């Protein structure tokens, strides 16, 4: 039995955007109090991509769960339009084919299997997965699995996408491919995106803004505007410079 925190107290006022203000969150664990977030603030306007970078264990996942309404803050306010989560591990259901995994959010709302497939099918084509509609996750490559997982989040039909280190488990080459791919998708399907990552380059490549978080307890220590045209190239001087700025905000010597 999973203890489910109450779902209701999410307030939905920031139309299609996300507003997190001075939020603190403390967990009581067997090993004592863990302060995950302390006075964390973050804003995302409608259709803005906000990348959140920070060291491991700085409360990034907690932040996303707050935005998705899976947790409530101990203090501070979270105003967010309905958000769908893309978890760190793909969490595809091993017994479902790619198309049925992609349509899971629709099935969760009571859509029939045929309807869900009809909706998901053209998207699988757009995502380069038309030949793998009926393939189960175990026979898909890591990059394919992340695409299916992202599509599942997208088809939830929420204005906000909360992406939790979506490409962290991929090898370097696939990760770069997937970053380029996600940039393209978001251009044609604009959504408000909170992209949590520990990869500074990924943050600068994909974000309109980069929010840098401190180690635990996490709070925003720096915010970097990325006013660069897309598609961006990793080797562009402006990208490299912003990456260095983000790294130094994280306290990394470069």
């Amino acid at each position: 039995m999973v203890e489910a925190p109450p779902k209701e107290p999410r307030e939905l006022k920031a139309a299609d955007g996300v507003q997190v203000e001075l939020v603190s969150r403390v967990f009581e664990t067997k090993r004592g109090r863990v302060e995950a977030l302390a006075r964390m603030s973050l804003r995302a306007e409608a259709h803005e991509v906000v990348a959140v970078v920070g060291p491991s264990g700085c409360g990034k996942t907690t932040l996303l769960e707050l935005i998705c309404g899976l947790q409530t803050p101990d203090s501070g306010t979270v105003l967010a339009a309905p958000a769908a989560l893309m978890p760190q591990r793909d969490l595809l259901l091993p017994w479902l084919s790619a198309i049925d995994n992609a349509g899971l959010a629709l099935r969760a709302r009571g859509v029939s299997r045929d309807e869900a497939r009809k909706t998901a099918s053209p998207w699988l084509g757009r995502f380069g997965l038309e030949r793998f509609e009926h393939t189960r996750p175990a026979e898909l490559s890591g990059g394919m699995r992340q695409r299916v997982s992202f599509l599942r989040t997208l088809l939830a039909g929420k204005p906000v996408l909360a992406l939790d280190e979506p490409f962290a488990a991929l090898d370097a080459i696939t990760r770069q491919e997937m970053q380029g791919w996600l940039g393209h998708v978001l251009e044609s399907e604009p959504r408000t995106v909170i992209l949590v990552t520990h990869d500074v380059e990924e943050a600068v490549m994909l974000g309109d803004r980069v929010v840098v978080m401190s180690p635990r307890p996490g709070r925003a220590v720096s915010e970097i505007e990325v006013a660069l045209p897309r598609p961006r190239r990793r080797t562009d001087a402006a990208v490299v410079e912003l990456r260095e700025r983000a790294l130094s905000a994280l306290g990394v010597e470069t």
Partner: protein
Amino acid sequence: MRRAHQALPAVLLVLALIGIWELYVDLKGPTFSLILPSPHQVVKALYEDRSLLWSSFLVTAQEVLLGILVAIVFGSVLAVGIHFSPTLRRATYPLIVASQAVPVAVFAPVLAFWLGFGILPKLVVVAVVSFFSIVVTTTAGLDAVDPDLIKLMRTFDASRLRTFRHVEFPSALPGVFTGTKIAIAVSVIGAVFAEYTGSNSGLGYVILVSEPQLLAARAVAATVILSLFAIALFALLALAERLALPWVYRTPEERPA
């Protein structure tokens, strides 16, 4: 061809054991074979008593199959209840374990008293002895569901019932199969003991009345049939599981790059 090759060690071992058995009984003399018949006497009994054994087998097989079915229904329903209610888990688990420790010989007469000498008390015995493993493995399957998946379903606005249907129910199915496979052997023993207590048909009844009549070969013949039945049932379930739950037997080598 490869399968036949794989079965070879098992076949050779069984043949060797039968050979030793035959030799041992033959050396001991004809009186001893009244206690332990030799393999060739058992084969003879299998042939000569074939109509009795067959009709008895049908009775016992029916008891075992229906009893297991009852156990699957009650076991999986109870497992779902236990999964969702910690109170129910604490309340029932000790009793479920205790139900396994009570010898069939003790409660079977009570069942015969309540339910008569028909098939009903046998179903209850088979169900009671086999539902333990089904409850335990099904509960384990349900408990092993990733809590992050439940969270994910909540961000998709799934009701608890839909989350159960799409996520937890399929996760529990391998556990139901495993529990049933474990239950097969004890369910056959359960049926035999239930027939000992009060019946006039079935392979257990045949064993019971053959021994005092010094028809040991017939009793062993009935036992052989019971063993083969258990093996066949196990193999059938394994096959059904492969067909019903192909994702459990995935082949990761076939991944595209």
